[in-house]
Each structure stands twice: as C-alpha cells, then as structure tokens.
C-alpha cells in the first residue's frame, strides 16, 4: 500500500482491442515521480496504443474505450481528450515536429498558452481579445530554454533555425508548463546529432531531478540504457519484461523485444546460392520520402538473388525502393549492371528493366476502376510500346486488344488470380488477388530486377504464402533479381538469401536468413555490430 | 462571467437605443408648403402675394399665389421663414415659425395662415 503512494502513474490491467483484435493485454506499468522509464518494443508491440490510452486520444473512445484503470497523481483518470491530459500535467514531445515554422521560438514555445494583457474588448467579445504580453512570453521562453541548457536565440523564426534546435523547441514547450508532472518523449532524438542528443538527454535528466517523470520511447537502445532508470519491454501487446539498465545488456533487451526462437530457422530453401555478379550497386543513397527517409544507404545486390530489406517502421526501408524508382526525391549513386542510372525519373528507370511492386497498391499500383487486362498491360504499353499495333511507321498506334487478353489470361492462370473474367474491374477483387495483379503487371514488363515493398501487407494468410511462392518461382524460373522490403522478419527470413536491416535511414547490417533472430533485433535497435563495419563500406 | 453578461447586455441595449436615436434624428419628413386660400373654422385666409420660403435655413424657392411647393427636412425640430417678394425684390417682411415633427409625421403648412398668425397654420399627418 505504502509503496503505491509513491507512484505518479499507475496503469493497471490495461487491455484494449480494436474490432476484436487484442492489441494490449493486461498491461501493468507504474512510474514513480522523477523516474525515467524507457519504453521499447517493435512496431505493433502496442507502444502507441498505450500512449493513446494515457492521453485520452479520441480514437480510443471511438473504438470502444479500454479495460483496466489509470491512476495518475493519486486519482483515477480517463481523459476524454489530449487536452485533459495536458491540463492534468502530462506533456508529450512527438517524433515529428509539431510547431509553426513561420513563428519565432518564443511564439512556438508558448503556442496557445500565451500570457495576455487585459483589453477592454475582452469584456464584450471574450478573453480571446486580450493582447499578447510579449515581454512575459519572452521571459518564459528564455526560462524554459535555460533548463534545456542550450544556446538558442528565442527571437529567431523557427524555419531559419538549425534543424537540430527545432526539437528543443518542443521540449521547451513542455518544460514551460508549470503543471508538468509527466513527460512522454516519443523518439525525441531521432533527428539530433550525437552532441545534441547528449544535451537533450542531460536536460531530460535535469527535469527528472526536479521531480518530473519521463516516459522515453526510443529505438536507440544505447540511449535508453544510458539514461533510463527502468526499461519496460513491450511485445505483442503485453509487458514482456521490466529491466534495470545496470543489470542488463543490449542483447538481452533485444531478445525480449524480438523474442526467442523455437526453431532454429524458417529458411525455406535448401541452399544459399553463391552468386558473385553484382547487378545493383547503391552508394550513399538519400531519399526524401516523408516518414521513410533514407540517409546515405549503401549496399550491393547480386544478380539473381532475393535480397531482403527489413527494419522498424519509419527507418527508411520503404524509402530505398521509392527513391530509386523516382517516386520521391533522391540523391546518390546507383549503378545497375555497372552502368550509373539517373534518379528522379521513373520512366527512365522502368526502361532500364527495373520494376516496382509498390506498398501502396491502391494508390500507385492499380487503377481500381479499370478492368484487369488494362491494369496488367498499362505500364507495359507506356514503357515498352507493347500491345500496340502501329501503322505508318509508328505514326498511328492503337491498342492490340487480342494480345492484351491473351497475356492477361496467361497471368491469371499462372498466378491463380481469382476473377470472373479479364474484363472484371479491379475494385471487385480481394486484396490478395489485387497484390497478385500488381505482380503480374510488373512481370509483363519482363524486368531484370524487381523491387517489392510490403507484398503481404493487408492480405490473408493463405494468400500471403501464395504471393511469396510466386516471387520465389519467378526468381528461380526467370532469374529475376528481387529486392523485397518488408516489416515481417519472418517472411524475409523465409525467402531472402541476404537481409539488410535499415536503421535511421542507413543499412546497419546485412545478415543471412539463418542468422539468429536477436542479431536482427540488435541491428534494428541501432546497436552497432561488427558486421556493419564489414559490409557497410 | 457575470460581469461580461452585464456588459454585453448593456452594450446591446445601448446599440438599440442608439439605433432608435439615429432613427429619430435622421428621419426625413416632407413638408408641403401651400400658398393657397385656407379656411380654418369660420375664418378664411386668402393668398394674395408671392413669397420666398426658407425651411431650416434652406431656400425652398418662390411660391406664387395658389401654388404649392415641398421641402424635405431631417430630424425633429424645424423652422420655417417666409418673406414676401414684390417684383423680384424682397420686402423684408419676415414671418418665422418653429415646429416639431414626430417620427413618421409629415406636415402641410399654409403661408396665409402663417402670415395671419393663425393657430392652425400647420397640419401634421402621419
């Protein structure tokens, strides 16, 4: 009883399901005043749902609330909105910047909590017509910045600030709240340099020393180990383990996070082929894909292999394919068959014999309101002038429907696409069949190399293995090189011959499918392994 | 909060009052000026000469006998001045009358009645 009193926050038996899917199972977490808790877990482990529950995010209420109770500051709470949480003294710093670029640091730090001066008009039209008290605003901003311990001119417009300072603005904003009792930091150091991250961590410790509790979510294991008092590992919606940093090591944390393996390997193939000819060489690739930035990734892919790209969401594994295919701005050196290829030009890349099965099936892959045969042949028609009859030396062209139907039927049979006819609208197909269609569309191009992103996302289990089998089959039969990016380590390890793990936009290491699961976990968590040094450069 | 309600109510009331005030002082009235014979009770005042008329210091013009003219005035209190004119020369014989008009009232004034200081020189109608 006595010990419970000391806790600022207790989440007891918290469970949550979304439409029948349990995402949190009986979570029990306690946070003492002034304690820094590290929260780690894979994507989908339930970190964000847990935080949404804590903050009373409307999405929780809209989906039927949660089970269990939250006791904050001695009272049971169930916040109706994040603002209630903020008013109760919980602050949050988000991974993505939440501020107004055109405002000064002062304005951003005091966003919507500006001190005001009385004006007569407020009597008539309400408090909103009080005038901002600029001096007071500046004073408070400077105070908050001082706690952070950084050099920052608060009068500068945030847009013009060095990027590293921007994250501090958000932390300073939370610090400014007099009420602040608990601060949740969601990947706050992702964009900071090491020295900046150090400053940030120091500031957080300072804050904790003042009695503010901190929940620190990060995938940088080292940072967590260095600065947290306790580490909570979430896996599959339940608390896997609570650890004390001094008693543990990265490997142990990674094991709890990713899980132990019962069978040694799920590798499907009998042998790992020895292939030496390089087909694709990527050097220092930078891709600006929102939420999936690639920051100087380098790797080589051998001709005829299935190359896997794994990593946590948001670390850039999807950015690689999208960047090379010209869907997002990219820089860097990419050589295909020894020849440098130009970036930022989709058509050109396609013409070189590189094709892409996008993770965004509905947005980029398919035209939903068109029949199957048009979807399958459209890109080929555009890029390779296939299925076109031409007259007068190509002056007049029209589509060759017969050839289109023929090839469509072939693929429908080959990939076992379930449909009524080749003229059926794509919209009417199931997710798995749509995915197969995306692949058929790419195969029609007869490419030498295919990027496949998240091929099994959103399709049912039976279809999943069919999709993977198809990829394997085409790889073996036609020698097509496949680069597959996926969040599912299982499927990467099932069909890929080599698997690169991406962390913070760079390749942190390349492992064989038979490597231990925890090795993958460590790479994902930014623990530098020796392998990275050997393969990286 | 209560203070705010009081201030708001006061403001709305004030605005309505100002509106009414503006209505009253800005209202136009038509004043018809007759230089015609008029019978008030038993007495008949007859028009005999030509007059120049000013209403609220604004010249309305020359009104010959038997003629009628009209002036548009604004507000509540007004003044009418008539002066006899003979062969285009003002005689200096001035008669001045003051009158008030309520909202929506218009008036007909009769010059012979004014000259003779009759009580019912003005006829106000709604």
């Amino acid at each position, binding site marked *: 009883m006595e010990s419970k009193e000391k806790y600022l926050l207790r989440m007891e038996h918290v469970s949550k399901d979304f439409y029948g899917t349990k995402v949190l199972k009986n979570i029990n977490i306690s946070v003492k005043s002034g304690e820094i808790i590290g929260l780690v877990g894979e994507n989908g482990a339930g970190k964000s749902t847990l935080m949404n529950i804590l903050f009373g995010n409307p999405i929780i209420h809209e989906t039927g609330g949660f089970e269990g109770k939250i006791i904050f500051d001695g009272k049971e709470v169930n916040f109706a909105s994040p603002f209630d949480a903020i008013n109760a003294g919980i602050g949050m710093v988000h991974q993505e910047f*939440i501020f107004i670029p055109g*405002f000064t640091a002062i304005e951003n730090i005091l966003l919507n909590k*500006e001190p005001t001066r009385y004006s007569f008009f407020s009597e008539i039209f309400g408090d*909103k017509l*009080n005038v901002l008290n600029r001096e007071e605003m500046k004073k408070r901003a400077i105070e908050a910045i001082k706690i952070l311990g950084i050099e920052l001119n608060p009068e500068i417009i945030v847009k013009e600030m060095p990027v590293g300072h921007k994250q501090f603005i958000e932390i300073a904003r939370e610090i400014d709240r007099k009420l602040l009792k608990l601060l949740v930091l969601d990947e706050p150091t992702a964009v900071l340099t090491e020295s900046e991250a150090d400053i940030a961590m120091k500031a957080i410790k300072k804050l904790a020393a003042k009695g503010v509790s901190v929940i620190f979510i990060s995938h940088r294991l080292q940072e967590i180990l260095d600065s947290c008092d306790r580490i909570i590992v979430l896996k599959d919606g339940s608390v896997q383990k609570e650890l004390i940093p001094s008693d543990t090591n990265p490997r142990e944390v990674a094991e709890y996070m990713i899980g132990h393996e019962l069978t040694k390997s799920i590798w499907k193939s009998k042998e790992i082929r020895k292939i030496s000819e390089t087909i694709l060489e990527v050097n220092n690739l*930078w891709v600006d894909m929102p939420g999936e930035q690639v920051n100087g990734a380098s790797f080589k892919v051998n001709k005829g292999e299935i190359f896997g790209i794994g990593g946590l969401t948001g670390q850039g594994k999807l950015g690689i394919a999208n960047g090379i295919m010209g869907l997002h701005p990219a820089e860097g050196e990419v050589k295909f068959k020894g020849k440098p290829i130009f970036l930022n030009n989709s058509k050109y890349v396609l013409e070189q014999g590189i094709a892409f099965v996008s993770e965004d099936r509905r947005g980029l892959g398919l035209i939903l309101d068109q029949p199957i045969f048009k979807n399958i042949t459209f890109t080929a028609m555009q890029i390779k002038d296939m299925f076109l009859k031409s007259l007068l030396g190509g002056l007049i062209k029209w589509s060759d429907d017969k050839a289109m139907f023929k090839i469509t039927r072939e693929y429908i049979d080959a990939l076992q696409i379930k449909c009524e006819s080749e003229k059926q609208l794509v919209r009417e197909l199931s997710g798995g069949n749509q995915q197969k269609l995306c692949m058929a569309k790419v195969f029609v191009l007869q490419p030498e190399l295919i990027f496949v992103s998240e091929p099994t996302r959103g399709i049912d289990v039976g279809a999943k293995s069919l999709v993977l089998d198809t990829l394997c089959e085409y790889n073996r039969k036609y020698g097509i090189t496949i680069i597959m990016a996926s969040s599912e380590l299982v499927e990467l390890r099932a069909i890929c011959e080599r698997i690169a793990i991406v962390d913070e936009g*760079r390749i942190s290491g390349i492992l064989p499918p038979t490597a231990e699961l925890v090795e993958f976990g460590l790479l994902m968590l930014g623990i530098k392994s020796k392998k990275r040094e050997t393969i990286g450069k | 909060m209560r203070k705010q309600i009081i201030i708001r109510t006061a403001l709305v009331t004030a605005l309505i009052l100002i509106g009414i005030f503006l209505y009253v002082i*800005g209202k136009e009235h038509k004043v018809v000026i007759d230089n015609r014979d008029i019978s008030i009770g038993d007495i008949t005042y007859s028009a005999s000469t030509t007059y120049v008329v000013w209403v609220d210091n604004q010249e309305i013009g020359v009104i010959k006998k038997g003629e009628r003219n009209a002036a548009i005035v604004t507000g509540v209190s007004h003044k009418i001045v008539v002066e006899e004119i003979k062969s285009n020369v003002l005689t200096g014989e001035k008669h001045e009358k003051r009158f008030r008009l309520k909202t929506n009232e218009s008036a007909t004034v009769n010059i012979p009645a004014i000259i003779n200081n009759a009580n019912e020189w003005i006829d106000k109608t709604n």
Partner: protein
Amino acid sequence: MRKKSLTKTMNPSVLFLINYAVPIIFIILIAFAIPLSGLSGLYFIRELMIRLSRNSFLILALLIPVMAGMGMNFSIVLGAMAGEIGLIFITDWQIVGISGMLLAILISTPIAVLLGYFAGIVLNRAKGREMVTGFMLAFFMNGIYQLFVLFGMGNIIPISNSSILLPRGYGIRNTINLLGIRQVLDKLIPLKIGDILIPVATFLVIATLCVFITWFRKTKLGQDMRTVGQDNEVARVSGINVENTRVLSIVISTVLACYGQILFLQNIGTMNTYQSHEQVGVFAIAALLVGGASVAKANIPNVFIGVILFHTMFVVAPRAGKALMGQAQLGEYFRVFVSYGVIAFSLALYAWRKRVEKENERKKIMNYRKSILAK
C-alpha cells in the same frame, strides 16, 4: 531533365522579382498607359483619391481571413449584401445623413454576422478549396438575396416607400437613389485642396480600421488565427479550436465587408440593388493581389499599393486602349482580362513558389542530415 534544380531561385533579386511579379508588371503597364490615356494630372489625382477612399475598406476586409489561412475571401460579397440590405431599410424609412449611414451599419451588422457565420461553416467543410467555394457561395447567396429583396421585401417585410418599391407592390427597384446618405461621410469634414475634395472622415475611418487590424494581430485571437493559418494540424494539437477560429475570421471579414460596401455606396450615391455586390469580391481580390499580396500573405501596404495600381489601371485603360487602337472597347476588354488574369496568375505563381520553398526546405533538412550523419 536529369535534375529539376530550383536552387537558382534562391538568388535574392530573382526571388524579389518573383514575389512582386504582379505589381511590377502593373507598374510597367501603367507607365505606358498613363501618357497614352492623355488624362490630366488633376483628374488623375482626384480619381485616385476617390478610389482610395471608397475601395480600401473593402480590401482591408480581406486581410483577416488570409491571416487565418482561408485565402482570399470571395464571400465578402455576402457582407456587401448585408450592407445593401441595411441601406434598403434606411432608404425605405427615409433616414438620411450621417445618422442614416450609422443606422444602416447598425442594422446590417447582425445580418453580416449571420451570413459570415454561415459562410464560415460552409468554408470549413471545404478546407483547401476556400476560394472557389467562397466564389460559389457568393453566387448561391446572390440567389437568396434576390429572392429576399425581390419577393420578400414588400411581401413579408413591410416596405412603404414607393420610390424604392416596384410598382407591382413588392420587390425593390433595380436602382436605389442613395441621395440621402450620398457622400455624407466623405464630406463630413470638408477639406478642399485646389479642386480636389479630400474625404477626410472616410480616410480617418480607414485609418482606424488599419489600427484595428494591427491591434487585432496582437490579440490572442489574432495569434490563434495566425497559428491556424500557418498549420491547421499544429494548431489543433496545441488546443486551438481551429474550426471556430476560422469561422470567426470569416465573420469579422464579412462584417468589415459590409461596412466597406456601405462606405463604397455612400460615395457612389446610387445603388444597383441586384448587381452592386456582384463584382465586389473579384475586384477587391484582384486589387489586393496586384498590391503584391499572395493567398497566404497580405498586409496593409499591399492594400494601398493594390488600390493605387489596380484602379489606376481602371482609370487609364479605356482611354489608353482607345488611343492605342482607336477603340475604347479594347481598353475595356483589356481591363477585364487583367482583373481576372491577375487572380489566376497570382494563384499559379503562389503554387509554384510554394513548391520551390518546399524543395528548398527539403534540401536544407537533407543537407543537415547529411552533415550530422557524415560524422
């Protein structure tokens, strides 16, 4: 082809030219048109004075929604309608002079608030497409206005003055004579320099509005609007009621437009019952854009530069066209072309500029990441 590099546009002088392309084009055009028109300097100054006094207020009404990120508010037409309804009433009641004008303002304010509230709600449903929605809304409300004035007035709302009522007994005539309040404000404080009448009181009112807008920017509500204008989501996350703030900005703009229209019509002296408000939005917006404003940024100097440039064009174009081509109509067509063209051009320019800025911003972040990760 290989790289769409836009870094060249970072050059400050080029950037200046891009940012102020519209005003610069206008200055050049006017520089040619003025001598061609052969209009006297006196006429020119007088005309400019009048146009500054009667149009500035309406254009100032556009500033606040821009601040709140709603773009150019075409629904100021609604405010103009409200003002006209006020004027119809005072004309019917025969209230004249300054008190008539004030009464018209008093009557039309609640109507403008209501219409503005309605417009704000509709525009909230059409985020990102505020301008075209506002344009359509103005059309829609014009229909309602006509219904109200053409059938409601005299039928439901008693109108007694036969000089504004159609002979059939209901509905308002096509033109209303505003002789009663004609130029009452303009001539309230008489000042004449040479042959030029200076509408001192009107300019004072406009100056007051400028002060108000400057003050308003400094209030909490003003700050909220700026926040909402810069980023809806950030504003929402930080607890600002985005929808409400947006609606308020439109309400304020509509009310100001209502006063602006009354000010405008007191100068004109006659009111075209069914059409006076029609072009209010287009002309005000065109003028503001000509003044160097963009959909996202507009300030007080833009308003005055805009009125001067745009209306100078209005004044000189017909005669310059006549002098150049021998036909006044050509100047006329040119003017119409210019007012709509300028809107389209500024919008395109703005979209392009935004893309460049985004690209630059992205480059900056990428370079930063490169620098920290290269270590």
